[in-house]
């Protein structure tokens, strides 16, 4: 009762602490959401590509990070291995794409439109029908001012943009799709195949399939392993800075609540001293400040979460290449962290209260 009254009789202070926590929670949620957005984007291609495992060059265990080259013999023989229902070849190559003075990373995927492995959702246009055609990521194309029917230059060849794909931006650029033949020409590597997207027959034994592929001199890697390895790669790049920013936001939240509760406690020092003289124990007084911090933190977390979800929508509408994903689990973690904020923020005021001498209230 006292905690709530102390807060509500001082609305500016309450507002300040709630706003402080809200800002910190918004920051944390957007950062964490951005991180999971990056992760989701990083696995989007593999999530949508056919098959459940990939045949890759021996030793290659990630999809985006390393180039894989399969020997033609492997490509031929995997398709006829027992237990393989389908093996869809793709060629992948990371290139730097420059247009209108703007450089971007582009992850080129060569595929056979008849077999799969291409864009899974087109915002406009169609899939490439000839080796002179390409499908670009819609967002990246928009940023470069490229539309359907435009010609773009990749490496030393001109390609016509015939389609715009959706959901194909990722952490270091965007994806683009052309026919395998186009990549063979671009890269001057006829017969080049990077991966096979393998669909095993129902009931096929994966270990024996792995052994069989291995005996051909290549590796069969489950999609989940590739995705995990891509994430690990990403984590090396992103987790430290994002973690640091989250930590800073967290500390800001603690500082704001802590400062507000601390000043209000110091201001009411005499009142608390009188309460002690009357017989309130330290525990009862801790409860008052901790409850104040808790109310502020929870209100802050609640409004912060709402703001973050609104902000997430706004950010993605404004900059579609940023994918921010705030899921229920993140919300729960953040709610818990706001409780932690409250607990830490009430430590200093609690100490101040513990040091209060009850007899002090009689001294003027």
């Amino acid at each position, binding site marked *: *009762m*006292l905690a709530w*009254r*102390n807060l*509500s*009789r*001082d609305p500016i202070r309450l507002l300040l602490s709630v706003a402080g926590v809200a800002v910190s929670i918004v920051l944390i949620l957007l950062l964490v959401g951005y991180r999971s957005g990056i992760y989701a984007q990083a696995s989007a291609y593999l999530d949508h590509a056919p098959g459940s495992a990939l045949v890759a060059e021996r030793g290659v265990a990630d999809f985006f990070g390393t180039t894989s080259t399969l020997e033609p013999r492997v490509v031929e023989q995997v398709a006829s291995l027992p237990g393989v229902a389908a093996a869809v070849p793709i060629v992948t190559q990371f290139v730097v794409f420059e247009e209108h003075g703007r450089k971007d990373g582009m992850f080129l995927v060569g595929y056979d439109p008849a077999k799969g492995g291409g864009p899974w959702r087109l915002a406009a246009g169609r899939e490439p029908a000839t080796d002179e055609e390409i499908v670009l990521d819609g967002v990246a194309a928009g940023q470069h001012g490229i539309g359907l029917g435009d010609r773009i230059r990749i490496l030393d060849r001109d390609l016509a943009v015939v389609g715009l794909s959706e959901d194909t931006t990722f952490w270091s650029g965007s994806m683009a799709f052309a026919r395998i033949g186009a990549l063979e020409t671009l890269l001057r590597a006829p017969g080049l195949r990077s991966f096979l997207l393998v669909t095993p027959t129902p009931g096929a034994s994966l270990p024996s399939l792995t052994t069989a592929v291995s005996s051909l001199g290549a590796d069969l890697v489950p999609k989940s392993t590739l995705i995990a390895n891509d994430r690990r790669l990403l984590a090396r790049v992103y987790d430290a800075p994002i973690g640091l920013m989250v930590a800073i936001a967290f500390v800001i939240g603690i500082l704001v609540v802590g400062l507000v509760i601390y000043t209000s406690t110091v201001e*009411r020092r*005499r*009142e608390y*001293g*009188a*309460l*002690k*003289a*009357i*017989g*309130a*124990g330290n525990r*009862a007084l801790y409860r008052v400040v901790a409850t104040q911090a808790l109310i502020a933190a929870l209100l802050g977390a609640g409004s912060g979460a709402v703001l973050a979800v609104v902000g997430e929508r706004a950010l993605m509408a404004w900059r579609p290449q940023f994918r921010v994903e705030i899921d229920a689990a993140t919300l729960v973690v953040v709610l818990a962290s706001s409780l932690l904020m409250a607990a830490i923020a009430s430590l200093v005021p609690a100490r101040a209260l513990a040091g209060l*001498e*009850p*007899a002090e*209230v*009689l*001294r*003027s």
Partner: protein
Amino acid sequence: MTTTLAIRGVTKQFGHGATSVEAVRGVGLSVESGEVLLIMGPSGSGKSTLLSIMGALLRPTAGTVTLNGVAISQLPERDLPPVRLREFGFVFQDFNLLAALSALENVALVAELAGTARAEALRRAGELLTELGLAERVAFLPDQLSGGEKQRVAIARALINDPSVILADEPTANLDSSNGHEIMRTLRAVAKERGRSVVIVSHDQRIRDIADRVVWLEDGQLRDLMTMAVDPVCGMSVEHDRAVTLEQGGELRFFCSRGCRAEFLGELDGPAETRPARTGPLASLFQAVRPKTP
């Protein structure tokens, strides 16, 4: 059952070494239920310190405090809050009500601290405030109350847990004289009607008459009250041996200074010490026209 708060040989020393202060020295006192004890003395004489020791807020450096035979000065720190909460009621000079709570909640909170359920605490607080004439003010915040009303809320707060002893430090210092008298009458009623012990610290001479017993503290020690007198002009307490005196109509008067005596006699007639003591109707006239004179 009658309760007794007794202190024996109580000494309180603040600090160590050269800068140490002995605020209370070897004081012995006791107060019975239904009794109003007034502790008087000059500023810095150790009154508040003594009151804190009596109310288990401060631990004496030496000596014991016993409440109904229990040596509360020997209790470990963690056992003290419940003693303060249930056995003592404190009334402060500057009220110290919680600014964020209404009068009713200020009183009820203390009952809740003692484990009373919210509804019951509010009900009892309401009753108590009504008895103290504050029925109309229960929902007011302290800021909306007058000084006298605030102090009555504080008295209700001190009474809510049915303590055996009420301790008040300068309860009227921030009040005008009519409110001060009202508070003193209330405190006396608490002692007489509820059978509590009431200990009041004050240097307000106006309230001497409500006390059953007055003790004088000076330099941390109790002095024989018989040797103390009140200057009729400035109201200060003065020791007989150090006072400037005036024999008047067979009555001996004591003043803190020649100035006060001169003022008492009136400056018209020149320096006071050269004049013979006034007697008769003129002297009583002087008394009648002086508002400060009791």
